């Protein structure tokens, strides 16, 4: 079954961003938000969903319009498209998930300048058909999400002792003298965790 699926080109397009072509840890794109929204797991997951939505839609639309967009103004067209999609995502979050939207603050808006989206539109969607672009969008969104979720997992677990807001580290451990690592909620921990993650991935790729 899996072997049969692996034959499709769309599978390859979908799976590569998850490992050897990971947008964050290999291609070094979209780092800003990967670091900023990872203090807790919940905002990180919401951010990934918003990002995957915008990325997939922009990929499909750019791909559908690829023969219509004049090449010398294509960046502006892409920016307008992406901004419109981000406005949609932002309005949706404000209407249905107000608390998370407040937590994410400006970072929803900053999806516009996330290099992954413009990068995929330029490098992939402008040259491929909508079906492949769709899978490329989903794959890159999840590849980006993978890093966010892992970093957020460690930062929330060690920084607050919770996961998704639920207490995970038992109170008895605190009584024995364990305490939360305050550093995890600050900026430096995010940088260092991503550095270590990239290290592990690089070693793993080389076998």
């Amino acid at each position, binding site marked *: 079954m899996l072997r049969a699926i692996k034959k499709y080109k769309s599978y390859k397009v979908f799976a590569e961003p998850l490992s050897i072509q990971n947008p964050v840890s290999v291609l070094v794109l979209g780092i800003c938000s990967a670091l900023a929204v990872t203090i807790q797991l919940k905002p990180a997951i919401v951010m990934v969903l918003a990002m995957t939505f915008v990325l997939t839609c922009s990929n499909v639309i750019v791909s559908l319009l690829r023969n219509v967009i004049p090449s010398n103004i294509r960046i502006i067209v892409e920016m307008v498209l992406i901004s419109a999609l981000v406005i949609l995502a932002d309005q949706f979050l404000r209407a249905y998930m107000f608390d998370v939207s407040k937590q994410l603050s400006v970072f929803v808006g900053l999806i516009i300048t996330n*290099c992954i989206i413009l990068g995929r539109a330029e490098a992939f969607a402008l040259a491929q058909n909508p079906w492949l672009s769709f899978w490329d969008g989903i794959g890159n969104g999840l590849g980006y999400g993978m890093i966010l979720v892992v970093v957020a997992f460690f930062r929330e677990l060690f920084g607050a002792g919770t996961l998704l807001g639920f207490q995970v580290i038992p109170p008895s451990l605190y009584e024995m003298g364990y305490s939360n690592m305050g550093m995890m909620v600050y900026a*430096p921990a995010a940088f260092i965790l991503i550095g270590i993650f990239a290290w592990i991935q690089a070693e793993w790729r080389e076998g």
Partner: protein
Amino acid sequence: MADLVNLALTAIFTENMILALFLGMCSFLACSQNVKTAMGLGTAVTFVLTVTVPINWAINHFLLQPDALMWLGLPAGIDLSFLVFIAFIAVIAATVQILEILIETISPTLYNSLGIFLPLITVNCSILGASLFMEQRGYTASESVVYGFASGIGWLIAILALAAISERLKYSNPPKGLKGFGITMIVTGLMSMAFMAFSGIKFG
């Protein structure tokens, strides 16, 4: 006056664009290999931030805020604030274009040193980020000028420091998998830790 100085100090040190808010990381990582390039990019970013934040302030204040259009004699209750993203990014892209043309005619030497970095700046998230923070925190006109300039200086300091460290890193010998991206992130983390020591810095 003391308020403005404090705002500048916060924007440069405690809420440094890169080291505390993670904005503008992409170009920060791409252009931090030597000090000269870093200086060029940092100056360009400071320049664009100082210009775009006040312009976006004006756009937001006179056009987009709830009830902002009343000075045109339009009735109250018009709220265009959902357009901030698209308006800000359009202003930034346009400003960068105009600046490029202006600098080219006025000062060719400045253009030669900044030229290649200017187009890159449109998609630098620190520029859009500063404007969005300005909108969210409701800065006044003078505050937005100071905030734009100080954020730029903070960005410049961070990228210069990292570039200087990177020049030395070439001669160090980290584990193979850590080379490049990994070690840069860890060094940035240590720098960010050092910048945290500035918290509480205050004037007057």
